[in-house]
């Protein structure tokens, strides 16, 4: 179980959440660097405010395995097998790159390197998986294999997302603020709420995933009115 209390950094948070084992946490960030920052903060790989608890104790740096957006950053070794470590062979096979383990990582294609980095994270034996845009550059088979592995993952996995379809496959979502454009110009969160605009998280989610672009919904954003398709946030009457 992963517990966040007051997790925050410049531009996002604080977030409080309790994420049980087998949670796939989707992170949607309007400003994409925030998503990467949140993953790194979850893993204790960058400075942040607040605390992260893992299985009843403070999370340590070695608890998290990060597959960065650029797989080259973690694939060091003369061969792919050396680069991903012995525990990752089975995951490499599941991700369709089991045959390539004898080759040097730099000879492989971008998608193959992405699969290797993912295999390395899954095979690291660490309970907290942090995957930064893991589906970028993967073909449909690769994506299917990734979602299959995530479904079987016993710990908590957090990943930054690229689409609404991916968001729908996660058990829990976090929407990070940071949009720079808003109809009528930027407004403070309080002002948005007082005008009856959607709650921040919802707006950020919709904006990032491009869902709110439907003209009738934009037209319905008037003071004091909330489009019927926006659900009320808890505790907001």
């Amino acid at each position: 179980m992963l517990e966040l209390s007051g997790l925050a950094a410049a531009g996002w948070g604080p977030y409080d959440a309790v994420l049980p084992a087998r949670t796939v946490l989707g992170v949607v960030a309007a400003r994409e660097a925030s998503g990467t920052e949140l993953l790194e903060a979850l893993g204790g790989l960058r400075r942040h405010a607040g605390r992260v608890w893992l299985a009843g104790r403070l999370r340590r740096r070695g608890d998290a395995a990060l597959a960065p957006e650029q797989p080259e950053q973690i694939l060091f070794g003369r061969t792919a097998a050396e680069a991903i470590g012995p525990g990752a062979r089975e995951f490499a096979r599941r991700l369709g790159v089991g045959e390539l383990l004898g080759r040097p990582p730099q000879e492989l294609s971008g998608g193959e390197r992405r699969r290797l980095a993912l295999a390395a994270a899954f095979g690291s034996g660490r309970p907290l998986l942090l995957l930064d845009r893991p589906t970028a550059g993967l073909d449909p088979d690769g994506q299917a294999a990734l979602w299959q592995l995530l479904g079987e993952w016993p710990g908590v996995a957090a990943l930054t997302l690229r689409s609404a379809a991916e968001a729908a496959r996660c058990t829990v979502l976090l929407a990070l603020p940071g949009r720079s454009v808003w109809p009528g110009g930027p407004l403070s969160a309080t002002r948005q709420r007082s005008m009856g605009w959607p709650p921040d998280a919802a707006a950020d989610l919709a904006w990032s995933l491009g869902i709110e672009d439907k003209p009738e919904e934009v037209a319905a954003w008037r003071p004091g009115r909330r489009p019927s398709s926006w659900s009320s946030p808890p505790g907001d009457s």
Partner: protein
Amino acid sequence: MLTADGVTIRRGAYRLEVPAFRASPGECVAVVGQNGSGKSTWLLALCGVLGTAEGQIWLHGRPCRPPSAAYLPAQAEDALLGADRRQEVGLTLGLLGGTEEPDAVLRRAEALLDLPAEAAPPDAAERVYRVLCGLVATDAELFLLDEPTARVLPRAQAALRRAILRLCASGRTVVVATHDPELARLAQRVYRAAGGRLEPTTLAEAVAEGVLAAPDLGVDAPSLEDLLGRIAGRC
């Protein structure tokens, strides 16, 4: 017209055979295939960076080379020269020995591509836009784009599709390597790399064979309510 007949590319132990490849001015051509099938290898060969072991690639009857061919790598930052769009264009012009005013060239490039406003600090999408501005400044006729939409959010994917359509409308040729069905949908021709060969196929065939996901026709799109129900904690 871009033509390649009976071309073979060797890259280490890897070998890609291309019996016949065509792309006309104003056309968008998609190259699809699984990871490691040779899509990027073919783009590098088209732009003249990888030599051919057999056969020759021609663009309007001349060997295909930069600056007539412009290349966007899968990781756009690998191709970045400048710290913003203006610098990117200025440095590109400098490398090519151009004497034009970078501001004017940038304005033309932005108008041609209809790009969103420049974002600072740059995100993945802005890095792609920036490289594209530089490539347009080269006056290249052939644009080789390696998975341009793979790393960006839906909004930027749409902006890139629009930019590609506008490149085509201006008479340039665009060849994209992609796994993105929405992008492949723009293409007038689709080629599939598999088993060391690049052969013509169709969008429908590529989807049926599982090389491309089915395009999002709005049928299976999750609703915002569904997604909102999953938002965690106090956000």
